[in-house]
């Protein structure tokens, strides 16, 4: 049976503010699950709960023992005043990873991510992207069953992102259940499953194909920002043009060019989900 980790209907409150409202997520061994959403959506809070850094007020979290969880916190989780090598040694010592296994993995991961030449450099002297890569390597080193990575690729250059993705897919191939948060939709599109969060609520969940297929109504691309006030509320800028979501049964505003109907991708699906939530709350 495939191991299933994740959270079931969890709620987290910070004072009077609800950061997560009955959110569920499941993460299967060998698969990558992405959590997407804007700033303040609750991505980090959800990942902290799943990793074990935060206890939800209600709901249940399923995770293996701490020795089988790899976690990359938003701050990176590495010690700036330790070298790359020393950071990895500390991690393998705490997780009691056999020395030969730790050496082999560290050598392979550092080589693949371009950190091998920086083994003796202090983590604080690495670039932001290199530090993130080190954080992911450190989280991977013990060979976790559950790998939780909070915005591992944020602020990282495209080459380093590719390196990080190699690490992530490698972990999944080795049987880890990977839960990641990201603000990049191209990354989320590569995941097995995606959870869309907005203002602490789950707006959509499923495979990228399932999420895009479930978008109601139609999406049209127009060159100019729509003049109609109602359509403006349902429009977003993308790739130098504007996209308008038309709910089922809605007609284009009078005088507006019909535009080109486009099949929604994951980014469109997330925009529509957020718009629907905003319109429902209004």
């Amino acid at each position, binding site marked *: 049976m495939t191991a299933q980790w994740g959270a079931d209907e969890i709620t987290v409150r910070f004072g009077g503010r609800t950061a997560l409202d009955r959110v569920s997520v499941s993460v299967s061994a060998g698969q990558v699950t992405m959590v997407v959403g804007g700033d303040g959506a609750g991505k980090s809070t959800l990942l*902290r709960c799943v990793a074990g850094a935060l*206890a939800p007020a209600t709901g249940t979290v399923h995770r293996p023992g701490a020795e089988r969880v790899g*976690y990359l916190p*938003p701050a990176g989780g590495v010690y700036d005043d330790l070298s790359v090598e020393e950071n990895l040694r500390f991690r393998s010592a*705490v997780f009691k990873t056999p020395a030969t296994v730790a050496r082999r993995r560290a050598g392979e991961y550092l080589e693949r991510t371009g950190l091998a030449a920086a083994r003796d450099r202090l983590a604080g002297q690495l670039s932001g992207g290199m530090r993130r890569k080190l954080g992911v390597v450190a989280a991977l080193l013990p060979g976790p069953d559950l790998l939780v990575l909070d915005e591992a690729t944020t602020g990282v250059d495209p080459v380093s992102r590719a390196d990080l993705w190699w690490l992530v897919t490698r972990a999944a191939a080795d049987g880890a259940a990977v839960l990641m948060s990201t603000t990049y939709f191209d990354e989320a599109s590569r995941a097995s499953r995606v959870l869309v969060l907005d203002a602490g609520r789950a707006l959509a969940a499923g495979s990228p194909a399932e999420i895009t297929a479930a978008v109601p109504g139609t999406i049209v691309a127009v060159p100019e920002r729509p003049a109609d006030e109602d359509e403006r509320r349902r429009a977003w800028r993308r790739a130098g043009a504007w996209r308008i979501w038309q709910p089922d049964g809605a007609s284009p505003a009078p005088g507006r060019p019909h535009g080109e109907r486009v099949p929604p991708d994951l980014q469109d699906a997330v925009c529509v989900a957020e718009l629907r939530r905003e319109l429902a709350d209004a």
Partner: protein
Amino acid sequence: MRAMIVKEFRQLRRDRRTLAMMILMPILLLVILGYAASFDVSTVPTVVAGPQAATVADALPKPFRLAGSYPAASASAASAWAHDELRDGHAAVAIVTGTPAPVVLIDGSQLFTAQAAERALATLRGGTAGAAGGVAAGGVSGSGSRVPAALAAAGVAGASVQVLYNPQLKTSDIMVPGLAGVILVFVGTVITSLGVVRERQAGTLEQLAVMPLRPADVFLGKIVPYFAVAVADLAIVLAIGVAVFGVPFRGSAAIFGLGALLFVFVTLGLGVLISSVSQTQGQAIQLAVMTLLPQVLLSGLIFPLSSIVAGVRWIAYLLPLTYFTEIARGVMLRAEPIGSLWPPFVYLALLGVAVATLATLRFRATLAPGSAR
């Protein structure tokens, strides 16, 4: 500049703990330390031994306060008992009566008390002579003259005075053992207090929280390296004290070492505890200094404990430096054995248990997946 000032005020207003410490703590410290800052010694605990012990004990004038008497007939037994009483810190002055001549012994390791005793003895000798003359003239009466007369009859007026353990009443001899403790407090509490809060600010505390580490692992892991540094510091400070300042080390190194280890454990644990309750390094340093200052001023290092107002003195008994100073002076200056030093050892051990328990509980709250924080 105005924008900068406004920004700083806004930040200060939000940092309630710092603001409270800046306003309330100085007031609190001033009041407490004001009552503590006194070199005045109002009582000198005194033991009396020898065949005329009872007579002298009944006649002791202020500031001498009877702390015990031993009416031994044998001069050697009386002298040995008196030396033991001073060595074990039960009294600051011992009056040994009998033949060949009475002797007044003063414990020089209690500097201010010893100085007060010397002054009182000098006054007493002058008063005794006058009173004896009065008695001889047969015309003096009243309580003021009867006391010196009784002492004169016991021969105390002509007694020789010996200052033990610190014959020249050197300040360095009594300060260096205690200062070694202050340095350990600085290394132990102030520097260790940054340990956890630095993890918090660097974002690695959350990483520790999800790692397979027990709170006790983190607590001990945090203090062991500092423990080694503090012990090395102590050895260096003592070596300098002995070599440069000529401070004697008369007692057992093993007893001193045991006391030092207990004391270092308490101070390091206090540092970790402070760190675990602080949100920023600034707060941690402020709290650590707030514990350092009372220890310096209330522990008996500078001001005699007996001079501190009773309402404030109880604080001294909560401070680890109080007990370390007692152990360090006792072992180094008076070669005090463990048999009489067990109370400070027990109190230090209790403080160690309390601090380690509190710090571990704080770690459990901080590292365990807690509620939103």
